[in-house]
């Protein structure tokens, strides 16, 4: 069964949640995905403006524009086109309802939680595809997605094991924004290991030499 499970609106600059759907699902997979939501929201600024993250049975899609990102969670078999047109609809409504100044200056999390009403209704509509088909023109979205497919975030990027952030500057070029290169700790190479051992050896030798020098002085 394919359906949209939840959606949220997040400010790109600092990952502040602005609104979210509050019809809480309780399954364990969902809890996992909510974790990804959090992780993603922290790195929105470095990600391209249309992305997909596949996490097992669920997909997370999001789009960003004008400093606000719209994120949604759906089952893995939910059509991509529908997902992005859902996000598009959220975006249009959000932009018309709340002016940018307000979203930029919001400090409290979930300032615009009342947008939930709209998310809720749109979600219900999209979860019921037969009612939907008459209302939106999917072909435009289809071509747009074909031309500019969403950037696929891989799990390892998200994990960002030891660096501050992961380096996805390499692959995101095609998808839009070019994020700056990031430093990242990498496992030592063979030459590195050899160099390290040699320098250790030299250090030890110098130490011994030093001792001998002191002895000779005394």
């Amino acid at each position, binding site marked *: *069964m394919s*359906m949209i*499970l939840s959606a*949220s609106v997040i400010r790109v600059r*600092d990952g*502040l*949640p602005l*609104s*979210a*759907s*509050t*019809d*809480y*699902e*309780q*399954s*364990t997979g969902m*809890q*996992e995905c*909510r*974790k990804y939501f*959090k992780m993603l929201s922290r790195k929105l600024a470095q990600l391209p403006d249309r992305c997909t993250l596949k996490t097992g049975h669920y997909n997370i899609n999001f789009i960003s524009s004008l400093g606000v990102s719209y994120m949604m969670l759906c089952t893995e078999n939910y059509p991509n086109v529908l997902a992005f047109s859902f996000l598009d609809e959220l975006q249009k*409504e959000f932009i*018309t*309802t*709340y*002016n940018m*100044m*307000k979203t*930029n*200056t*919001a*400090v*409290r*999390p*979930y*300032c*615009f*939680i*009342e*947008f*939930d*009403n*709209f998310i809720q*209704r*749109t*979600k*219900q*509509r999209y*979860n*019921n595809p*037969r*009612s939907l088909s008459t209302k939106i023109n999917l072909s435009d979205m289809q071509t747009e997605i074909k031309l500019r497919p969403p950037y696929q975030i891989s799990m390892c990027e998200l994990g960002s094991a030891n660096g501050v952030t992961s380096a996805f500057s390499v692959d995101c070029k095609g998808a839009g924004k070019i994020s700056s290169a990031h430093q990242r700790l990498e496992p030592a190479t063979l030459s590195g290991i050899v160099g390290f051992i040699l320098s250790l050896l030299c250090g030890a030798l110098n130490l011994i030499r030093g001792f001998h020098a002191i002895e000779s002085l005394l």
Partner: protein
Amino acid sequence: MRALYPPCHCVLTWPFLGPAQNQMQVPSGYGLHHQNYIAPSGHYSQGPGKMTSLPLDTQCGDYYSALYTVPTQNVTPNTVNQQPGAQQLYSRGPPAPHIVGSTLGSFQGAASSASHLHTSASQPYSSFVNHYNSPAMYSASSSVASQGFPSTCGHYAMSTVSNAAYPSVSYPSLPAGDTYGQMFTSQNAPTVRPVKDNSFSGQNTAISHPSPLPPLPSQQHHQQQSLSGYSTLTWSSPGLPSTQDNLIRNHTGSLAVANNNPTITVADSLSCPVMQNVQPPKSSPVVSTVLSGSSGSSSTRTPPTANHPVEPVTSVTQPSELLQQKGVDSSSTTSSASPMPNSYDALEGGSYPDMLSSSASSPAPDPAPEPDPASAPAPASAPAPVVPQPSKMAKPFGYGYPTLQPGYQNATAPLISGVQPSNPVYSGFQQYPQQYPGVNQLSSSIGGLSLQSSPQPESLRPVNLTQERNILPMTPVWAPVPNLNADLKKLNCSPDSFRCTLTNIPQTQALLNKAKLPLGLLLHPFRDLTQLPVITSNTIVRCRSCRTYINPFVSFIDQRRWKCNLCYRVNDVPEEFMYNPLTRSYGEPHKRPEVQNSTVEFIASSDYMLRPPQPAVYLFVLDVSHNAVEAGYLTILCQSLLENLDKLPGDSRTRIGFMTFDSTIHFYNLQEGLSQPQMLIVSDIDDVFLPTPDSLLVNLYESKELIKDLLNALPNMFTNTRETHSALGPALQAAFKLMSPTGGRVSVFQTQLPSLGAGLLQSREDPNQRSSTKVVQHLGPATDFYKKLALDCSGQQTAVDLFLLSSQYSDLASLACMSKYSAGCIYYYPSFHYTHNPSQAEKLQKDLKRYLTRKIGFEAVMRIRCTKGLSMHTFHGNFFVRSTDLLSLANINPDAGFAVQLSIEESLTDTSLVCFQTALLYTSSKGERRIRVHTLCLPVVSSLADVYAGVDVQAAICLLANMAVDRSVSSSLSDARDALVNAVVDSLSAYGSTVSNLQHSALMAPSSLKLFPLYVLALLKQKAFRTGTSTRLDDRVYAMCQIKSQPLVHLMKMIHPNLYRIDRLTDEGAVHVNDRIVPQPPLQKLSAEKLTREGAFLMDCGSVFYIWVGKGCDNNFIEDVLGYTNFASIPQKMTHLPELDTLSSERARSFITWLRDSRPLSPILHIVKDESPAKAEFFQHLIEDRTEAAFSYYEFLLHVQQQICK
């Protein structure tokens, strides 16, 4: 639990500390603590709450997936309120600045509102600072002065001096390019720049970039408020990243735990709007009828196939001595397990990471730099004298009770001595530190010595109880004020929110045991407040090890560091905290509102949320069996709801739903777009399912018309019902399923014993035993069905409120469990009938008005912290204990009270003050996550006399009442009664042994305890505990429920009502309230001897008023106030005072109105004629008189005396 923390602390070298302090151990590795902290709660998932595995949902889901239908409603974009947050914020503040801020839209408006919010509290402090500014005072304090903050004043002096160097500079904390910038252009941009201090430069550059875009005035509203509430986007301060890191760790840890939850998926996102086609699973008929007139009962109803009687599982726990403090083992003790290990505890923050190591880490008074051997009052008093003579006691430790107040010295002084020399900024200060500790302790001991000759405090005056005829004072009894110095007194938490049974905390458990008094806290955390500082801040400043919120009782070591008053850890002051938006000055962290008010509310960041803030969701579950229809409550309820529909707290997301039940369960589809409400009947009560999960809880504003239609139709829909059964259990299960996706409030109206399906109950009351003096049985629940259900609800953030309106026994003891454990509330209307019992009907109406419109907080947790050395062990109230010190409250309402029992684990010799802090994290009805923090500070004393001097007798009685309720459920009523009597006997005999010079034949009590025997006697005659008088079991259980959940003020009225004579009200001593003159008649003691036939008396029992009119009452009074010509013409049932245009009528009414206004539930007035049968109701409250089954007050005193002499 504490043993679970591994003693992990590592040696840290603090950059700011001098070399002498380098070896100080500080607990770190904080994240590690938390992971350990979480682990046990995961284990709890094995605990209770595994009931109701619901295979049904999946059936439902699959089933509906086959029946996908096409809804045709149009989705129109709703117009969402533009300013939700701002209005919410403003509504807390005083109204005047609100108007200013919103109309002018200028920065000044917002600033004035902010300053207005805090003016009252900041005044004391401003004088305080002046005091420290003057060097003369400074030297004076180092020579003799015994009070105040001698050790810290130096810092304040320094800080003001450093400010004086650039006086007009203010550092609004702004990120560059932020739109706030424009607002600051009206103000002088700071041009003077502290060149010396590098750390300031960042802020200056931030200010110098005002954004070119001024916000529109209308939109500015919210920004200003948030700005005035110190919302600033921050530069990272040294303390900040690590705190956030901790929170993140907590969070991820918590999520991992939450994954293990056995949770329930409700297939609620399926939409099946067309119900007529539905073929229900398992052949249970789902009948869809359209509500029109009195239809709805024509549907086919299948009888239940099988009942599942649930075996009573009552856990019997061992009785324990009430005053031993070791836990009357009730369900509310800390050992209870968690059904849903949601990790709110991790969100709100853990408790002490390591008690053992903290003694090393906390800088205890360091004797090394202390040159004065004659000082140190605290350690000397550790072994308390066994039987100290009053005269002897006075000498060494300053018996001078009234002003013995060492203040902060013990805590702060030694540290400063180590810190100061290494801190270059405060170079001018260096010459002093060596003197400090010695001087402080010397001065305090001088203070003590000088007070030796001072008169004995009033609270210690011995009172001979048997001789004193009028023990009750003429004026209401107020809470004793803790014996703190003037500054702390002003800052301390209001006794209305936070009280301790002993306002002087004994130093050791041994001393406490010797005093034989209960130690505990009485809380009213969510009380309606008229003034509450609301703080929006990026970083909520908290102690890094014990997570205490910064409060007025912390000490600032210097401008950059503060010391926690609960665990004594030294923390950094975040950069943001240095800026004071109130004065718009920089570098005065001690003037921030958090440090100026002991009750504050923070707007929480998203770190304090596990999920987006839930909407306000209200579900009404209504009994519509024959019994209920006969009682006629539906009319009143629907009328109240219709009147208050717009006043229900909530935002535009508010949802509402209705269910009714008799032997079947009826749902109401109220989805907008329908022409009228649809009733859906589910008759399979053994396997309840939700027919249309999506459209049963609907948006209040979108479906308002349908809701109104339903409410208008409901009272008449079931008029001809013949159904007498009640399937409450299945209805509650359905309600739980309906609520579990969001959480919220379920209001259950029940009128009889549930007789069908899960949770059915049998009558357990034997009417012949009602007045038995021996054993009162069945005070505990008959089944654990309701408790399990409540725990499940609590796990899904749902509270169940019970309105029981029954004329017969309904086993409240079992039913009440559904509210007790889900943090709900219980209302009981015995023998309710809308025409036969108009006073009950009126009471229901008034209660409902309050209930529907009062504030409400959702998905709340409350944690109580106290100074290291004290520990909490038993909690009282309606909640679920999720971990040792975390109370899970699915809902919090302003009328809920709590109590906590305390014990002293480590002696408190190295501190002179202890603090208690409650933090209540909740989601407001407007979808804001907020934290309300109360902090109470109390002195520590070392002598028994001081302990007695500080007894808060009302708090003690309320705590004892709570303990006695636990005892009567876990053990027996007679045990509880004995324990209450023993509490008096023990404490008075313990007092008697301290004052040996008095004659032993008399029954002596300190003045602070003089009301103790009276109140205990009142308790023994209270409905909850009385024996020998006919008391219906439900009445008794309800009284017990009230004792557990009422806040202190209301509970005291219930225990000991106030009696006034009102036929001769004069303006003597009257007070003026809102242009009204309110007479203040003296309190009368509760004895028939005070009642004269010539008078009229008002008795204020909290939830009910009685006016007793004597037979020979002056006809003038009857005519002027009651509006009748003579005594004989007064009707039997009179519940209102007529509005007559006479002076005495005006006085009486203004007095009663004044009494009413002081409480949330407006009480019902009964006018009782001397001859009417209702007078028994009145006379049962005259507790000083002898009844056939109980002592009079004097007899009780003799009994106590006898026990003491034994």
